[in-house]
């Protein structure tokens, strides 16, 4: 699986959305991406890429694109 696929799968599984919907979501504004979904998403991303995100990055993770930018800090290129 490519990183891109893993990344998309994490969103799909954690937020229970269709693959096409995932890139349009933002934290707090999409019903599926609420604070419960957020914690599931963080766990899914950490599992998928075997990383441990810092608190500030978890808070900053607010959109599909922002997440890619944050993962770069952990040497994960999407």
């Amino acid at each position, binding site marked *: 699986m490519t990183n891109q696929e893993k990344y998309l799968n994490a969103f799909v599984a954690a937020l229970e959305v269709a693959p096409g919907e995932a890139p349009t979501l933002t934290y*707090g*504004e999409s019903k599926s991406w*609420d*604070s*419960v979904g957020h*914690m599931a998403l963080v*766990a899914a991303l*950490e599992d998928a890429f075997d990383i*441990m*995100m*810092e*608190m*500030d990055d*978890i*808070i900053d993770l607010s959109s599909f694109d922002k997440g890619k930018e944050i993962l770069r800090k952990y040497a994960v290129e999407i």
Partner: protein
Amino acid sequence: MTDESALLALPPYGLIREEKHAFLTGELAALTRLHAERCPAYARMLSAAGVSPDTVTSFEQLPPLPVRLFKEFDLKSVPDEALAKTVTSSGTTGQQVSRVYLDRETAALQSRVLAKIMQSTLGGARLPMIIVDSPATLQNRDRFTARGAGILGFSLFGREKVYALNEAMELDVSGLHAFLARHEGETIFLFGFTFIVWQYFYAELRRSGAKLDLRNAVLVHGGGWKKLADQAVSRAQFHDALRDVCGIERVLDYYGMAEQAGSIFMECEYGHLHAPAWSDVLIRRPRDFSLAYIGETGLVEVISVLPRSYPGHVLLTEDEGVLLGEDDCPCGRKGKYFTVLGRVRHAETRGCSDTYESR
């Protein structure tokens, strides 16, 4: 109002009296103006109190909003379409609940400030976490109880989280054993509400005789002592009892409420609650609402610079407390430190609210 990045750059426990006074006065005057413009009920309260944000020279002059008004009125300063979530306190059936309306900005500020406070308490790394509660607490995602919101807020600081209780609120001893085996030698972070920790965690360990080794753990708990005080359990007994059943040494209480989430008052190693940069406490004499001296019991007023979507920046609680000092706690943290004695008696007999206790 100070922008978010400048707010977050403040040292959590580094402002001394004069700096903090100036910061809070400017910040709270601006917040008072904002809420008066956007929340008509708040504007009426302010004008009834004869206070204008433009003439306030000290934040201590701002009239506190009784916290129970969040049960009686929908107090918000943003249009409905800007609301990101609503947090409610969990009352028992028939009891009115508080409703706190959050937009994204305020919710994010709360999370970030809580992160600063917790980083200062636990260190920067996220620790393996045991949530002393049941996953059922988070079932209704549309309307969070304050208990659920607290669990989620603190979950940020943990990783590989497990719940100590199952859906039926029963202690999952084998699950905890497996978790502790996976994390042998690591510092474990436990979070829970005081009463839940006592009733469903401590009491069950005591009853069953099950062994858990939590010598390497830190427990952060909050939500109030009322139910424990009713059972005549003191803070010292709480600590001793927990150490007895699982060896835990670091047990830290915090004082906070759904109406001012984020900027909580965390206990230090000397057992004192501390006001961080973003919040403050005033103790008022119930007779005339004048400010009490250090050491004098009074009503607890709490102040937070975070609420932007609802007028909750200056609140009068229904708790009694004592200011212990300012800038000179032996732990080294600057700012005020205090203790909370419990709910004011008349508030209890009116059956008003289990807000802090039963989250």
